[in-house]
């Protein structure tokens, strides 16, 4: 355990290693670490920003959805109204048509009835003439009595 030149040797080695460390080890390591720190901080900030943006986008989407729903409801309403209107119109048209058909049918019936009446009237006149002939036992000159018969027929 003697104090000797080793002490001086160690001092020299110490100085050399410290200088090496100061020049080639410390600065690049610290620079790399500082850069990484900055990168991480930037990344965290970006993540924060992104989550904020996401929140905004979600809000916007919800709003849009609400709007769209509202619009859709409006469209459905209008469609319902329109369909009701169409049905109503169709109903009206149907009623009108039905009335018209009914009127035509009635007119035809009346016409037919009139025609049948005319016909019957003619037949009745003939029948009456035939009956009278039988009753009188003589031929009635239809020409002489046409006026009478016609009068009779029209009274029927």
């Amino acid at each position, binding site marked *: 355990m003697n104090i000797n030149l080793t002490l001086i*040797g160690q*001092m020299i*080695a*110490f100085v050399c290693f410290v200088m090496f*460390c*100061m020049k080639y*080890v410390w600065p*690049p390591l610290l620079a790399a670490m500082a850069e990484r720190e900055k990168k991480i901080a930037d990344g965290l900030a970006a993540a924060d920003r992104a989550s904020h943006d996401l929140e905004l986008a979600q809000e916007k989407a919800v709003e849009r959805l609400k709007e769209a729903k509202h619009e859709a409801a409006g469209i459905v309403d209008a469609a319902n109204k329109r369909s009701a209107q169409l049905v109503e119109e169709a109903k009206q048209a149907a009623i009108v048509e039905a009335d018209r058909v009914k009127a035509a049918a009635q007119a035809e019936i009346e016409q037919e009835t009139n025609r049948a009446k005319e016909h019957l009237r003619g037949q009745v006149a003939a029948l009456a003439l035939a009956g009278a002939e039988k009753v009188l036992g003589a031929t009635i000159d239809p020409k002489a009595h046409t006026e009478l018969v016609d009068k009779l027929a029209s009274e029927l």
Partner: protein
Amino acid sequence: MAGSTPTVSEYITHHLTNLTFGKLPGGYERVDGTLVGPDGAWVMASGAEEASAMGFYAIHVDSMMWSIGLGIIFCWIFRSVARKAEAGVPSGLVNAVEMIVEFVDNTVRDTFHGHNKLVAPLALTVFVWVLLMNLMDLVPIDLVPKILEWTFGIHFQKIVPSTDPNITLGMAVGVFILMLYYSVKVKGFGFVKELTMTPFNHWAFIPVNLFMEVVGLLAKPFSLGLRLFGNLYAGEMIFILIAALFSAGALWMVPAGLLQVAWGIFHLLVIPLQAFIFMVLTVVYLSMAHEDH
């Protein structure tokens, strides 16, 4: 001491002797009986007596080699990581190195408030280097010396540089020189005033003040170096004693083994702690050198 089975005290002395290369004084009679010439001679010491006869002009080859070797390992690992380091995702060794660097950086930031680009790299070097030197204490005590003895015929080998006071005091003196340099640079004349006018601010007390301040100043590097040396030396000593216990007989094998493990585990705490203390005190002393009152 090779060859015949050594006694316990021989074994211990053998383990505490450095591989020393130095200048034997003229007229010194060596172990093999030869006399050193009048001008002295630079030789490898053949034992503890020769090593102490060499006095100051000797160098502990083993301490120096291990110390510089570990320093180079530190530089190599950290430099290769520094070259690879980038802002991307770190992995493996880069992570470990950055953890150490960040730890040292935080400690320096907390303790040192001046502006000095030297302090943080200095603290990193001190911490990792001392840690590596201390870690050598966990290598089995006989492993490296025996291998070297069998392969190269080298008889002495202390593989823990921090159990050599030259190594720890060498670093402490380096720190001390930096302390003086920055004290003068930052405080200028204020440093002289600090040495002479505190704690008693009166001209009549200048000699007393000077004595007290100089003792206080010198105590810093000495305590710094001797604390590390003392802790590691004591730790190594216990390891040597436990190793000696193995040779006490088959009955002692199990307790010695248990002691070895227990002391090793305890020493795992001492190793980083002492490295940390050395680093923190270095930073604190330099911080004090920068503070102008």
